[in-house]
């Protein structure tokens, strides 16, 4: 059982997301430990696990979640439990080593970003697929997978703020303020995504689709938590954020078209419409002010920024291949397909 803070009564969170089902010995061990029913898995188990596999990625995801919303039935004190942090470090080491080995090295940040700033005439990514031939069930799956991030949109990046200063800090805070709705709760991007999920007849409860999400999705979110929670990886976090903002605008336009074509509803289209416009601005601010400001102060972080860009592209491509592979084969990309609240025959027709 993870110890509580000395001198404080044991606290337990009764509300909150449910702990996910195990996908192997690592995630089973973490789950048992958090529930107080077993020991943590020994370190060699982490060293042998497939770095991008379901078991390691879920175990790592569960290790990070106490920093966000925690889990029902688990003490919030586990956030700083030394045993859990030790295991998390072993999992991170395995993940990060694989990322460093698999991410193509670029000569400069400019080189790394230049590739993102060219739009393919005949794109083959997930957003192209969804725009051209995506069916409603595939849009729902896409939203369920992405809900792991979008329901805490911008949160992993907020951790970088104390690690920046001057121009980079001011610009990063300004973009985050925009992500958080500019001071208006109904415009917080995570809220806009929940509205999209409602249009798609999905459950908007935080953590609801953790069990359903594939390993490739977990890895994209774990990457942000990894970069966000380590000051030593602040360059990579900034590179990650730039990649998301640069690629978001054109991708969001295609996804907005996909939502309209499938008759998903006005909030579903609005979420992506808002991102077309917002991220065209964010891209400029992140490239010129955040990256520019950071490298002006700490030029030695340039390789880390480029690594953050490359690792993000690597994991996004892996997720894209997984989704398209499943959908082209007529399979669900989810481990447990979402149940519809309304029968699939009752097609929604929204007029906007």
């Amino acid at each position, binding site marked *: 059982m993870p110890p509580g803070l000395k001198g404080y009564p044991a606290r337990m969170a009764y509300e909150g997301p449910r702990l996910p089902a195990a996908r192997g010995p690592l995630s089973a061990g973490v789950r048992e430990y958090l529930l107080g029913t077993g020991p943590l898995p020994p370190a060699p188990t982490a060293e042998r696990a497939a770095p991008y596999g379901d078991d390691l990625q879920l175990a790592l995801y569960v290790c990070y979640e106490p920093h966000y919303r925690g889990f029902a039935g688990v003490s919030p004190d586990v956030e700083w439990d030394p045993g859990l942090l030790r295991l998390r470090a072993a999992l991170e080491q395995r993940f990060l080593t694989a990322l460093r080995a698999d991410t193509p090295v670029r000569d400069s940040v400019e080189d790394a970003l230049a590739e993102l*700033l*060219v*739009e*393919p*005439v005949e794109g083959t990514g997930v957003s192209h697929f969804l725009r051209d031939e995506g069916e409603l069930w595939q849009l729902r799956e896409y939203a369920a997978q992405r809900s792991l991030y979008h329901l805490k949109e911008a949160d992993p990046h907020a951790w970088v703020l104390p690690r920046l200063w001057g121009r980079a800090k001011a610009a990063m805070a*300004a973009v985050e*303020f*925009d992500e958080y709705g*500019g001071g208006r709760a109904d415009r917080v991007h995570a809220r806009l995504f929940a509205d999209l999920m409602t249009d798609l007849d999905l459950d908007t409860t935080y953590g609801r689709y953790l069990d359903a999400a594939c390993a490739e999705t977990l890895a994209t979110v774990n990457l942000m938590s990894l970069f966000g929670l380590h000051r030593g990886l602040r360059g990579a976090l900034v590179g990650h954020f730039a990649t998301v903002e640069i690629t978001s*605008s*054109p991708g969001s*336009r295609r996804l907005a078209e996909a939502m309209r074509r499938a008759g998903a509803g006005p909030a579903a289209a609005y979420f992506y419409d808002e991102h*077309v*416009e*917002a991220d*065209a*601005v964010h*891209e*400029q*601010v992140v490239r*010129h002010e955040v990256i520019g400001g950071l490298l002006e102060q700490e030029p030695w972080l340039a390789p880390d920024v480029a690594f953050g860009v490359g690792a993000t592209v690597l994991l996004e491509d892996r997720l894209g291949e997984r989704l398209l592979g499943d959908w082209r084969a007529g399979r669900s990309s989810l481990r447990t397909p979402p149940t519809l609240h309304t029968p699939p025959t009752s097609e929604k027709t929204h007029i906007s």
Partner: protein
Amino acid sequence: MPNSPAERPRRISVQRKGPLLVEGPVEVELEDGSTVVSDRFRVALCTCRRSRRYPWCDTSHRDRA
């Protein structure tokens, strides 16, 4: 108040390839006399005229390959 922030001229960043970056909020008057408003902290105004969300940038200025 000589040092009031409001006294500072509004900054607009120009770049050879890309949108005009203007400190928000802004009200833009279009050719037909209609106006559009954005209260974002900064707005990106399309200069390539290819945007489908004109006058706002939608990254349509990017090279295609």
